[in-house]
């Protein structure tokens, strides 16, 4: 294999010079006036590779905070009798000490933690941290562009995300606590400070933070779409794009169409909160006070929220799907099975994602007749999803599968996507949803299918492209410990939740002991909490591995260590601003020529031989 790589490198240089795309980059490249010192290089950088790393590390920071919050509320849930006084230095007044000297998590703060956990993981980690990182890193590198279409907007995108995070972080320290009405922020609870402490200043900051986040997503999305459409190198037709790019491209379109709707929903909510309007409020008596608000409907907010909220889950999972398609294909040494079917299924899922939102609202009081349409469209999504799963499995079939941390997380992703996707067939059917809505079955479903699965896609991407980001490899042994531990642990956390859900235990319960019908699951709750703590510490292994490898990991010595076909591996080991020092390679074929004829792999810049079938046509 090593020989192949060296041979390709010389061939690559020759081809790039001869038939590569010459944009006269070197002629006006007298040093880099935009990145002359530490601050402009590493902090306010406009280089997409630095911005990608900023998104990644910020995302990791938030992932640790969000996961840490889940550990705290799981402790309360799993060990309701335990003394949590030791958390007082961290949580202060939110630990209530009773007469017996036993410290308990304040219920209001329990719900605040649940809310923050959801918001942080969904938006800051799995949207910004996942899509932000890999769209930024891979779009210019894989389509053959010097940078994003607008590097400055790209930098703004990160800094708006940073600001959004900062505002949310500040809200954690309010005396009334952060917002505590669930990540979906349903009014009237989120509109009335009288109904919940967290709906006061906490909710105001939540809205400000989410609005800044919408700006970040839109700036990023416009850039991703423009770059994919306009900055592809010579020969890179749409059908020659790697599936990662297809996924990021479609994700950006979904985000661009759905996030503004969240913003409009939040704007109306702000009017209700501050200006006395009644978009979402009607006939309310709260805390003995009769409000003079009539005519609004809380269900309107739910429509606006889920018009973003449902596409949002595809904004999370599509990039993970793209990454896994690429990683599995590279390490299986086989073309991805059914490339076009993969693209069409992404398109189908993206289209359907806009007409299924009300399946979150079957039991919310909408007209039951309307639900008929949403059931049909929701269950149709199972078809493109099934096609994708079969194609991933077929990619492994007949391969020469290289097991490493990246490809293992790819397999783990497929397993999680199957397990979590299948439970979606129950929930999407409104009749079954009567029983399962807002129970732990839902918690199990979405944590597996978009939480764990998206994390696995992200991990696969990090292990795979770490050399491209830092010029070093992550440690494989720690990576495998991380994978197997997380794979087993994640199932131990979330699988039992199916059973509690099927027993009817509602989600978002501070304690299940009030109900005779539910309290026999106290033991299972303990088990889940212990599993969650173990899995949390396994993620620390990942973080240590990440930072250790960044400075001390095995150095990358060849440009294309995985023997991949895509363009990012034709850049220097530590690519500078502009990515390629000379010409940009011109693309001659699709991205999946592995083990074609007698060649182990054929990079995209190698011209087609005579009579060779072009799959990217």
């Amino acid at each position, binding site marked *: 294999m*090593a020989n192949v790589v060296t041979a390709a490198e010389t061939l690559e240089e020759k081809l790039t010079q001869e038939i590569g795309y010459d944009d006269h980059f070197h002629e006006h490249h007298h040093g880099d006036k935009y990145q002359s010192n530490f601050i402009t290089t590493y902090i306010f950088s406009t280089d997409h590779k630095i911005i990608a790393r900023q998104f990644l590390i910020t995302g990791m920071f938030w992932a640790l905070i969000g996961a840490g919050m889940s550990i705290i509320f799981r402790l309360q849930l799993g060990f309701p009798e335990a003394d949590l006084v030791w958390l007082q230095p961290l949580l202060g007044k939110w630990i209530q000490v009773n007469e017996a000297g036993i410290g308990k998590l304040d*219920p209001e703060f329990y719900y605040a933690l649940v809310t923050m956990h959801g918001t942080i993981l969904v938006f800051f980690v799995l949207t910004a941290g996942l899509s932000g990182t890999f769209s930024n890193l891979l779009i210019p590198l894989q389509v053959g562009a010097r940078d994003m279409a607008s590097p400055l907007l790209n930098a703004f995108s990160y800094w708006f995300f940073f600001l959004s995070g900062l505002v949310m972080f500040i809200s954690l320290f309010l005396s009334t606590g952060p917002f505590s*009405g669930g990540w979906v922020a349903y009014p009237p609870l989120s509109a009335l400070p009288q*109904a919940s402490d967290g709906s006061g200043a906490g909710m105001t900051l939540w809205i400000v933070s989410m609005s800044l986040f919408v700006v970040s997503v839109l700036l990023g999305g416009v850039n991703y779409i423009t770059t994919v459409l306009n900055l592809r190198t010579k020969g890179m037709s749409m059908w020659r794009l790697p599936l990662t790019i297809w996924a990021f491209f479609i994700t950006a379109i979904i985000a661009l169409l759905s996030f503004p709707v969240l913003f409009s929903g939040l704007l109306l909510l702000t009017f209700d909160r501050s200006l006395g309007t009644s978009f979402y*409020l*009607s006939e*309310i*008596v709260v805390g003995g006070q*009769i409000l003079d608000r*009539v005519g609004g*409907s*809380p269900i309107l907010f739910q429509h606006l929220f889920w018009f973003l909220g449902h596409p949002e889950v595809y904004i999370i999972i599509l990039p993970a799907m793209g990454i896994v398609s690429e990683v599995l294909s590279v390490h299986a040494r*086989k*073309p991805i*099975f059914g490339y076009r079917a993969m693209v069409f299924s992404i398109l189908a899922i993206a289209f359907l994602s806009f007409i299924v939102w009300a399946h979150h609202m079957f*039991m*919310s*009081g909408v007209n039951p007749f309307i639900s008929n349409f949403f*059931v*049909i469209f929701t269950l149709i999504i199972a078809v493109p999803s*099934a096609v994708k799963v079969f194609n*991933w*499995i077929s990619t*492994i079939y*007949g*391969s*020469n*599968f290289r*097991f*490493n941390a990246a490809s*293992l997380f790819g*397999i783990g992703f497929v*397993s999680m996507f*199957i397990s979590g996707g*299948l439970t979606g*067939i*129950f929930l999407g059917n*409104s*009749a*079954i949803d009567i*029983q399962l809505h*807002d129970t732990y079955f839902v918690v199990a479903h979405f944590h597996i299918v978009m939480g764990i699965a998206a994390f696995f896609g992200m991990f696969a991407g990090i292990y795979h492209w770490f050399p491209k980001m830092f010029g070093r490899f992550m440690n*494989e*042994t*720690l990576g495998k410990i991380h994978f*197997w531990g997380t794979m087993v642990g994640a199932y131990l956390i979330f699988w039992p939740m199916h*059973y509690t859900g*099927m027993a*009817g235990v*509602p989600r*978002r319960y*501070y*304690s299940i002991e*009030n109900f*005779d019908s539910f309290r*026999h699951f106290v033991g299972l709750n303990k088990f889940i909490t212990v599993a969650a703590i173990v899995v949390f510490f396994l993620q620390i292994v990942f973080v240590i*591995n990440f930072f250790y490898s960044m400075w*001390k990991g095995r150095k990358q010595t060849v440009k294309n260590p995985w023997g991949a076909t895509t363009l990012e591996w034709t850049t220097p080991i530590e690519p500078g601003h502009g990515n390629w020092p000379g010409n940009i390679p011109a693309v001659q074929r699709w991205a999946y020529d*592995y083990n074609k004829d007698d060649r182990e792999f054929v990079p995209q810049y190698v011209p087609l031989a005579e009579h060779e079938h072009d*799959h990217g046509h």
Partner: protein
Amino acid sequence: MTTLIIIICVILLMVVLVQIARVTELTAVIKGEREVLRDNSLWNGWLSLIFLVLFLIGVFISSWNYRNLMLGYGPLQSASEHGSVLDSLFNVTLIFTGIVFVLTHIALFWFAYKYRYQEGRKARFMAHDTRLEMIWTAIPAVVMTVLVVRGLNAWNTVMADIKEGEDYIEIEATGQQFNWMIRYPGPDGKLGARDYTLTTAGNQLGQDFTDPKNWDDFIPSQEFYLPVGKKVRVRITAKDVLHNFYLPHFRVKMDAVPGMPTYFVFTPVKTTTEFRNDLRPYEEYNTPYDPADPNGPKRWEKFEYELACAELCGKGHYSMKRIFKVVSQEEYDAWLKTQESFYLTQVRGKADDPNAGKDLGIESEKVQEAAADTTAAQAPAVL
């Protein structure tokens, strides 16, 4: 001191991990890249197989273990008429998805093991196979069609409102932070009108007492009775924020929305006593109800139909429990007789009675006496 020990432990753990990383990097260099890849692939191929086997066994054993605690299995059969339709739909879906789950997992991990990296093995160049792809697009499409048709049939039947001329009882459930209030229509069978602006401490539901339908409505404070075999229409409302009227044993769930009444229609088919007797043979329900009192009543003896809230409504969300008792028609009628009109016992003759001075022709003697006693002494109720 404990903090110090914890910090030291964490630092030691980090050092251990970093050392593992360094040692494995070194051995990898000594062994060479190819050998590492071969060893890795062999090891992880086997781990994939082991994981597959343990995972599938674990799934079957654990679901068997919890079978008598999950709704729709063992003794927890639906206590309502429509519930069994939903349960069977659940199980049909479970069979379809179960087959797919097992087969795809076997394929995924078995292929990963079978086609693990081996020196000299050449991966097959298979870009696509139109016929195969057609087949596996068509099969899920057909299965989904079956599930959609069955599901929508069930859905539209369950969600249908009362038809004209049907015999039913209407009750009203109102969610507020953090309890449920249940209102019964009284002998006239009709719930009286409400206006939220009339809400006071003495008139929590804002009933409009100029509406004669309100005069006989009653609001029990403890347990709520329902007769077995009779259709119940629950009118669901909320006073402050969203709540959700959730009766797990009846497969009943519907949001309570301020300003927009919703409803759910169901027919209880098992009395509380019958349900208890169904639980009796099962080991899980023969443990003491109160673990501190091993000789006290068993769990099945204390079983009740519980009402819960299933829509986050604030810090007391988890505590909105109420109990419904399903009884025979005779017991229900007897219970009805013991219930007294809210208006006549709490409002009539008091200072805020909107019908003060009017003869409504409905008062029992007892009420009239009570009213005469207290007319002068009543202070107006505070909001």
